[in-house]
């Protein structure tokens, strides 16, 4: 039995400690916003936060999450209120949408670390997340827009 804290809620799960966190989230807790894309930390669709850091849950054994705060896309905000979610909708970023949970979770850490990221910062932080629909330009614009909004809010 492993006890996990996901989106500030405690869960006891029956899983082998080596099971990737992704499958515990998706198949045992039914938090399906975190996506399976490659299974080898190549595409970033499974990105979640572990104690605030972006990790690829498809290669993170569930044992590593014990005693830590797991945040998934479902726990990022209430009612799409995170500046990134607002900006994503404003810029009409999603197409098929499958990668966007991971994109937003990666971008959330970037914005926390660099509240006003440059294009180079965005390249660095976001190149681990593949979007096969090619929404990169809109993701870039949305990150800049979210940064602007956050700046405004801080004033």
């Amino acid at each position: 039995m492993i006890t996990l804290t996901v989106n500030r809620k405690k869960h006891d799960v029956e899983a082998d400690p080596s099971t990737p966190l992704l499958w515990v989230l998706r198949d045992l807790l039914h938090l399906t916003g975190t996506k399976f894309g490659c299974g080898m930390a190549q595409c970033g669709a499974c990105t979640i936060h572990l104690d605030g850091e972006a990790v690829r849950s498809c290669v993170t054994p569930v044992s590593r999450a014990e005693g830590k705060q797991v945040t998934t896309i479902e726990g990022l905000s209430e009612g799409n209120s995170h500046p990134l979610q607002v900006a994503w909708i404003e810029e009409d970023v999603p197409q098929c949408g499958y990668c966007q949970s991971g994109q937003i979770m990666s971008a959330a850490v970037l914005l926390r670390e660099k509240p006003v990221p440059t294009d180079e910062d965005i390249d660095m932080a976001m190149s681990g997340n593949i979007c096969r629909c090619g929404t990169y330009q809109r993701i870039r614009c949305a990150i800049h827009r979210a940064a602007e909004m956050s700046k405004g809010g801080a004033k």
Partner: protein
Amino acid sequence: MSGNQRLGRRGFLKASGLLTGGLVVGFQVPLAKRAAAQTPPTGKLPPPNAFLRIGADGSVLVLLAHSEMGQGIWTTLPMLIAEELDADWSKVKAQHCPVAPVYGHTAFGFQITGGSTSTHSEFDRYRQVGAMARALLVQAAAAKFGVKPEDCRTEKGFVISVGKKAGYGELAEAAAKFPAPEKVTLKDPKDWRIIGKTTKRLDSPEKVNGTAQFGMDVHFPGMLTAVVARSPGFGGKVKSYDAKAALAVPGVRQVVQVPSGIAVLADHYWAAKQGREVLKVDWEEGPTAGLDSVKLRGEFHKLAATPGMPAAKAGDADAALGKGTILEAEYFVPYLAHAPMEPLNCTVKLSEDKCEIWSGTQLQTVDQGVAAQITGLKPEQVEIHTTFLGGGFGRRATPTSDFISEAVQVAKASGKLVKVVWSREDDIRGGYYRSSFLHQAKVALGSDGHPSAWKHAIVGQSIMAGTMMEAMMVKDGVDATSVEGVSDSPYMKEVPDHLVHLHSPKTGVPVLWWRSVGHSHTGFVMECLIDELAHAAKQDPAEYRRMLLKDHPRHLAALNLAVEKSGWDKPPEEGHFRGVAVHESFGSYVAEVAEVSVSKEGQLKVHKVTCAIDCGLAVNPDGVKAQMESGIIFALSAVLHGEITFADGRVKQRNFHDYPVLRMNEAPLIETHIVPSTGKMGGAGECGVPPLAPAVANAIFAATGKRLRELPIRADQLKQA
């Protein structure tokens, strides 16, 4: 008679999951010609509410006959209805339709999302539906107000008459009791307030918080998840297998044989995958045991020199090629995987009298037929719940229904409610690729700079042969999709002596349409060849195209706009170089100018792509722009990285580490301009792809003087000595 007609209205609503309270507008839906051909001769109309429901709360639910896979149809089709309905856009929602003849494609008859046709093929049907509903609501309001329908107008979800106003929600029940109008008049385009205006996607909110439901997310209590061990080479068969070790993995529940291999069913994906890893299967090699990319290319090369099936012919190309400056070139493109972000998957619940399927599919009618065949049920006993598609690009429309039929087989063999999930490796190695193609061209340049004779051989696998579409798409041995973009090229038509011929070798590799189909290679070859000719004729590549395309106004309009916006006439930034291409596909005309730099080490960087499209009316202009951006990135992935190769009968690539696709740091700035156009409406989902590769290759030529005639482009080819 169709299953849903037999079910009756209530049954239909129930079957399609629509009986969720609220009132319905029970009008009848006009049929497009092809769909009409499928209905019984008694002329009985299809079930009501097929495309639209208006709730008592004023909500407007639009049922989509096409699958949302990123292209934005979830928003575009509701726009068409909302326009004629004068709906309050904030109350409009969308949902995929069930599978039923009434949802047949207005041109093809069966349910399909493909060929970049969804918007233009539904432009009339969905507007008519909106107009019919509006007429009914007006009738209901007129009766309620005690006025004539002519004295009513509609605005944002209300019917209004002098001093009176009623919302669509409160009128819906009464409206449903009026007979459907036999004729409707559609709005004059000058009165449009939604069509042609940039409209935000309706599916964004659920796609930014993880609640959007993809096939991968389907879950039911008691459901098992399966992975299938498939033949390591194409077409191999199971000789024998030993499930003991697999069954010993905690969570693994069952191991069953299906035609495609051995399925391991478990409580969840991870257990199923662990089980598959220890499963022992002895395979009998299939017909592609010795498959090898280098050998294949050699065979394609040899074939090109022999006469193929003529696809376009005028005059005597061979004789005419004796004079003038002769240009000879061979172009090559590899096999490509679609690699949609969501790996393939399908959930099946099978009972004695029903087969329910949940999946992101582009080809529901075929899937339904295949499932019926496997289960012995009637097609109408097969229900398909189309989820969001995590990308399609053609892979989720297989004429063999491969990933749907396999899941039905697993459900049948196991007797379980099961979700079959493909790993990324299963997807990359599982076939259904864009075929490799080799082109050999010999072109004579006349003294006026025009091509005067042209012989063009194309070698590559047919995607239509052996499918239900063969009769429609393969004529006299020529698969139209293998030669589209060459045989019907505006350049080719002007050449007095020309011959386009085709070889369609059978290699055993499963092939399929891949975003922009034949144009994915013919656009590259033709627009690079034209660049080569421009260079031979010592003319500016844009100016040369203008000369050749002088009688093709829509090509010209796109070309001129892209060229102008790219700043073609001004020198680019130091070290940057430009290339241009223009290509028609799927009824739209797209020009792209790529701006690149090439380092001494051969590192290519695509900085910017300026794109112009003439697609006729752009129903949702920002949606069209999004599709151009998407097509350009998709194409650039293939230009820089895309390649599926074979050795010893096996696919060499496995995942995104060795089948890379474009990432953020490689993405160029993209600027899209829409040509104001009254031309016939074309598509948007695919036509951004074809001009990208040639625009980049032509820019590389401008930068380095090197003419790259094969994809993907490799740094070692660009290294400067």
